[in-house]
């Protein structure tokens, strides 16, 4: 291909996952070079939060991270595929703008997150109080889609920020990337957690298992990270993640301790209790504060980023808790034990 920057390279990434419908199947055929990309009308007719659309979008985005085995790296900037991605993104973003709750101001959106009710009912509350080891393993498998590339989607916003916002964001990202120590990179700490839980740490290993709701949370980060026009929403999203992470991590660390998951599993969440208590402060004061001092017109986008994060996290929580309370797996394909575990 003329636009190849170097000889076509069949990426070292994970194998392409199993398609979940005709749109994701067409994207995979196109990536393999065995068929045309999906048609516009197919994209329009697919359920926006469903498996097929979310996987198709995930496949498009993953080309910007690690790609897939046997898929040319040139596909990352393939105009026909970018056109498909834009159509998928339009559906997703339109739905998010319609469905996410909306706060009138950034302050109001943040204020709701800064309340920590004693009788909370989220996933971390459930896992803390009564989570079993098999549920912790499922939770880690679902979350591995993000945590094995933790902080990567947010790094894209750095060139779009200036001054206080940029230095604050860069400082938090540096912390996420281990502060210069490879053994402290958060993605590495998560891989160590997965090993404690008897999970396979190979990148992309649990893509087939992950539910559409889990894919949507990661697709949101990629969507907001890749588009400069959505930098306000990316910053709002990041703030929401950091603000909610510290207390949730305390509960998840407690769940790991109670179930005897292992020291690395406890350490991942223990580390996030303290780290994210700091990150929250930096993101609120320096990143949001700095961005809105420079670009006050982005305030509604920042609020949208906060609200939409809660919207998709709530959908994932419904999926996880709905399945677990019924005694069912939350995953699309069951986990195999990589080591003997007693249940």
């Amino acid at each position, binding site marked *: 291909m003329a636009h190849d920057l170097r000889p076509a390279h069949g990426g070292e990434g994970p194998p392409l996952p199993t398609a979940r419908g005709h749109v994701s199947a067409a994207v995979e055929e196109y990536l393999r070079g065995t068929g045309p990309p999906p048609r516009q009308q197919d994209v329009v007719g697919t359920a926006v939060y469903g498996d097929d659309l979310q996987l198709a979008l995930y496949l498009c985005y993953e080309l910007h991270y690690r790609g897939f085995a046997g898929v040319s790296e040139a596909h990352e900037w393939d105009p026909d595929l970018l056109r498909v991605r834009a159509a998928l993104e339009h559906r997703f973003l339109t739905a998010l703008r319609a469905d996410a709750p909306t706060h009138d101001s950034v302050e109001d959106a943040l204020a709701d997150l800064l309340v*920590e009710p004693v009788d909370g009912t989220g996933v971390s509350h459930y896992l803390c109080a009564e989570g079993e080891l098999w549920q912790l393993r499922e939770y880690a498998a679902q979350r591995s889609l993000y945590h094995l590339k933790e902080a990567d989607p947010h790094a894209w916003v750095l060139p779009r920020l200036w001054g206080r916002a940029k230095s604050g964001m860069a400082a938090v990202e540096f912390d996420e990337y281990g502060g210069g120590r490879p053994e402290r990179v958060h993605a590495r700490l998560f891989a160590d957690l997965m090993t404690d839980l008897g999970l396979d740490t190979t990148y992309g290993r649990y893509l087939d298992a992950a539910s559409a709701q889990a894919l949507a949370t990661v697709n949101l980060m990629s969507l907001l990270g890749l588009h400069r026009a959505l930098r306000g929403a990316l910053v709002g999203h990041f703030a929401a993640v950091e603000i909610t992470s510290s*207390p949730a991590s*305390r509960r998840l660390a407690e769940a790991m301790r109670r179930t005897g998951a292992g020291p690395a599993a406890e350490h991942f969440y223990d580390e996030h209790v*303290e780290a994210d208590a*700091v990150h929250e402060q*930096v993101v609120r004061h320096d990143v949001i504060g700095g961005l809105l001092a420079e670009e006050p017109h982005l305030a509604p986008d920042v609020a949208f980023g906060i609200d939409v994060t809660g919207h998709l996290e709530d959908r994932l929580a419904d999926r996880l808790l709905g399945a677990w309370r019924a005694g069912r797996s939350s995953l699309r394909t069951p986990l195999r034990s990589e080591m003997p575990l007693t249940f």
Partner: protein
Amino acid sequence: MPNSPSDEPRRIKVQRQGPLLVEGPVEVELEDGTIVTSDRFRVAVCTCRRSRRYPWCDTSHRDRAKDR
């Protein structure tokens, strides 16, 4: 070297609600004389005394219910 960051006074950010924020690394001497250290780029020191990781902030200062 004059004007190097280490010659400047260390700024501590205080808030009505929330931790003291200070540039790391930090050593804190506790009441019993124990010294604890944090090498984070910024350190959040608990002021509400509710933290389970005292002297480090763990967000325990947060309200349990929204002010209406």
